[in-house]
């Protein structure tokens, strides 16, 4: 990157299974007030806004129109990214690197509880000619992928079940988490099959919440209060969307995004150079698949290392010490902003009782969920 870019302010709401007492605007306003206070800015300082929005999930067409008010961004340039939170972060970084902006706000929220038939919204992402006519609940995509991933990698469903136990336990120490719990891996394996080998407790449950970040160029730091967390590298990749021709076994999008993000950030050995990782775990097996694609475990060793405790909160490389999506709730495209928030808190030393000792550098890894083969990787650090 031409000039250093950093997160200088973070604001968030609690994550909840439902939130009938707040409109999405009221949630975003609360998060924005906290983010601006953290960064030491007023809306006057904002040069541009990047907001995440997928109209099918908002229930509003051209949802960009509903972005400015609650961010104090009336009559400012706004761009809506119909994509994942880290893709939004990438767009914010590029805006800053054009030189046209010094301070950009990134917003993402979830009102998943307002979607009456979430599977039908997911089905809208399936190919209308070849896939939708079968009429299956879209979760079959995760069942197909999990089977092939376990087959190719040698990891087991029991090891995936231990991801659930770890992440929901970690969430017990995260005050904003929606689904903290003590769950044993046996309970996961005994839960109802959805698209076997995928079981009910393997899946992150949806939640509502909002995140706002203030992102700035180094040249703006002197007029800001917030402790900067630097974006050292970021990349995102989309593999083919075809369910019948994709490589199910490996998260190739993650591997390639990681290679690029590591090169930008100067990470040569991820398991040595990183102190923690917030990794997409929309389904438990995805955490193992992503861990291996990120190079945090050798191929086929993710499950064994997990069993040995390498990715536990106190382990060699804590993965989803926040509780991940399994413990905090799935926030659709804002899920990775929950990961970004954790990275900011950890790198500032503000993560409370789940603080990773000496956290200097970490990563966030996202996936755009069923049925995509799209994901992003961001490497962040403190000075």
């Amino acid at each position: 990157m031409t000039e250093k870019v950093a997160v200088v302010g973070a604001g968030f709401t609690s994550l909840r299974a439902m939130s009938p007492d707040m409109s999405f605007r009221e949630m975003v306003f609360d998060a924005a007030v906290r983010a601006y206070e953290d960064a030491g800015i007023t809306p006057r300082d904002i040069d541009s806004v990047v907001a995440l929005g997928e109209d099918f999930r908002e229930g509003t067409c051209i949802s960009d129109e509903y972005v400015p008010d609650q961010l104090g961004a009336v009559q400012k340039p706004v761009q809506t990214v119909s994509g994942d939170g880290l893709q939004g972060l990438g767009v914010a970084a590029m805006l800053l690197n054009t030189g046209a902006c010094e301070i950009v706000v990134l917003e993402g929220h979830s009102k998943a509880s307002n979607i009456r038939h979430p599977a039908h919204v997911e089905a809208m992402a399936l190919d209308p000619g070849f896939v939708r006519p079968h009429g299956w609940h879209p979760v079959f995509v995760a069942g197909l992928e999990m089977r092939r991933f376990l087959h190719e990698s040698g990891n087991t469903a029991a090891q995936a079940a231990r991801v659930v136990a770890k992440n929901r336990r970690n969430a017990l120490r995260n005050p904003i988490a929606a689904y903290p719990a003590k769950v044993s891996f046996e309970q996961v394996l005994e839960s109802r099959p959805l698209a076997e080998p995928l079981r009910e407790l393997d899946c992150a449950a949806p939640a509502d919440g909002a995140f706002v970040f203030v992102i700035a160029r180094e040249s703006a730091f002197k007029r800001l209060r917030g402790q900067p967390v630097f974006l050292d590298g970021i990349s995102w990749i989309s593999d083919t969307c075809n369910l019948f021709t994709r490589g199910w076994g490996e998260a190739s999008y993650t591997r390639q995004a990681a290679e690029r993000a590591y090169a930008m950030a100067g990470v040569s050995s991820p398991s040595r150079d990183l102190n923690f990782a917030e990794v997409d775990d929309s389904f438990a097996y995805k955490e193992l698949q992503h861990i291996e694609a990120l190079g945090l475990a050798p191929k086929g060793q993710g499950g064994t290392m997990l069993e040995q405790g390498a990715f536990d909160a106190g382990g060699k490389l804590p993965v989803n010490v926040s509780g991940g999506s399994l413990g905090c709730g799935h926030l659709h495209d804002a899920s990775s902003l929950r990961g970004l928030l954790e990275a900011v808190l950890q790198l500032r030393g503000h993560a409370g009782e789940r603080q990773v000792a000496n956290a200097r550098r970490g990563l966030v890894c996202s996936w755009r969920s069923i049925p995509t083969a799209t994901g992003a990787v961001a490497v962040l650090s403190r000075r």
Partner: protein
Amino acid sequence: MISELRGTSLREEDIGSGNVLTTEWRPKLDFAFDPGVAIGQFLQGLKEGKLLGRRCHQCGRTMIPPRMFCELCFRRNDEWVELKDTGRVNTFSVSYVNWDASRREKPQVPAVIEIDGASPGMGILHLLSEVGESVKEVMARVKVGTAVQAVWKPAAQREGSITDILYFRPLS
């Protein structure tokens, strides 16, 4: 009128009979919208036959529909105020179009109504009625700035919706 069109048009029966293949999908897209504090209270007010706004002490604006924050001052605003159910027409249109693009016999008149007691430019979108059944009649009775008043549903039929007001009609 266009007098001559060359070529062969695609007819609906070509698709219906399967001569032209398409794939069809009927989405099941149902959404709720959590009203939150501001809109929730506003809807409760409608049920009680009241129009509620919020006032910001910093810029002095009184906002309807209400919101819990002032988007210009970017601060939590300060108090609820009950407004009159009268106002003035900001803009209106005489609409002859049904959902299926067929023509209405009698037009509808959607309007933006600036509510009395709210700040200039603050209003709600509603229907004007008792204003005639043709462009000519409507134009004779309604102008930008015409004073209007809400006609409410009977209390027992109100359900906390913007349609608890049936329509607005000219005051004079």
